[in-house]
């Protein structure tokens, strides 16, 4: 019972103290994770479940040989991160991302998409 009292006290104490934020999960991307697109995309768009800290978020796109194919300059607005892509030949491309949500939680991941039939 002491534990219950403690737990409820903790919740009540902090409810008014902090703005709730959370880890930024990858919500959806364009091109989609694991998808095959017939036409090479000009940019990669990653949307997250939380707003991002632009200075501490990054993404890389590389081809099957490990060569960078993104243009490097990120555009981050709220929970969406965009990066331009070089002209992509048919093949498989790997995206590696790491972001910091506005409450300093870090998340990361990687996925592939395919260009061509």
């Amino acid at each position, binding site marked *: 019972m002491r534990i219950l009292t403690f*737990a409820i*006290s*903790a919740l009540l104490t*902090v409810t008014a103290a902090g703005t709730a934020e*959370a880890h930024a999960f*990858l919500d959806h991307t364009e091109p989609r994770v*694991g998808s095959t697109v017939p036409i090479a995309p000009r940019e990669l768009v990653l949307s997250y*479940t939380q707003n991002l800290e632009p200075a501490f978020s990054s993404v890389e796109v590389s081809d099957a040989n490990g060569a960078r194919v993104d243009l490097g300059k990120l555009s981050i607005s709220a929970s969406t991160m965009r990066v331009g892509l070089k002209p992509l030949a048919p093949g498989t491309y790997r995206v*590696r991302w790491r972001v910091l949500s506005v409450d300093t939680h870090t998340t990361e*991941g990687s996925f592939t998409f395919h260009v061509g039939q």
Partner: protein
Amino acid sequence: MVRYIPLSFALASFIALASTSDALAHCFVGARFFPATLATDDPCVADEMSLPTVAWSQTADVPPASQWDLGVDVSKRITENFGVTISQDWTQIRQANGTVTQGFSNFETTFQYQILKDREHELAILAGVIVDWGHTGSTASGFATDYSLLTPTLYFGKGFGDLPDSFSWFRAFAVTGQVGYQVPTNSFDFTQNAFIPQQLVYGASLQYSMPYLKSEIVDLGLPDFFNHLIPIIEASLTTPVANNFGNPYTTTGTVNPGVIWVGSYFQVGLEAMIPINRESGTGVGVIGQLHLYLDDMFPTTVGQPLFGGSSAAPRKLTF
């Protein structure tokens, strides 16, 4: 009871207001998120709370008695890699003849240290000691003992996301587990007139992460609800291994198939509890849990380790 409230409130307030540091939080290891499991423990120190965990089952008695268990756990990081969990359970057993027995089990604390978090291989290892403090529960009702139990325990979690891409959907699987050796502080229970065995306490889970499937392998365009699910099967087992003279060395426990729904601030889990043998219970029980991610709910207060963190600006993130 009343005299505990100011102390509890003061302690909670201290934890809520005293801490500042980076928040890495509950069980993320690279791209893998290990949810809090219901019958075993996840392999990370964290700031989290299970409020409540509710279970219903039928005992192994003949005829079986109906048993309700209500539990609360609060976990708090003291430093980035060291955490403490405090737990208390309340149990009610209703016999077939209507007789009801109820009470608290012993107060439990778990001290855990994060040995390893390997992001690339989605591997986490945790060491801990579980202490059931004797004479802190309802000893008269039989739900608590007047001796303590010490259980050094090793925990692990491993995601399969580091497998080659050719393994495709299989990469969303992960396993977690724990192995502990429980030693009582007394070797003989004079009230029960029986030896108190030393026991191996162990368990494991096999889980399939739909969030991982969607963000790392393939986005199937499923309704959002399904993208938050982690189907899971857990096993929680106990085997007497020493000081058990005159008694069978029978393993008892349950196998729990179920599912966990994972949100940004909390998760909800529901599992069936299937006894592995007649000594473990009668019929299928059920366990449910609401689990709160305190680090995400209160990232600048409760969700921080008490000591050893940094309030400095975060470093540039690199791959």
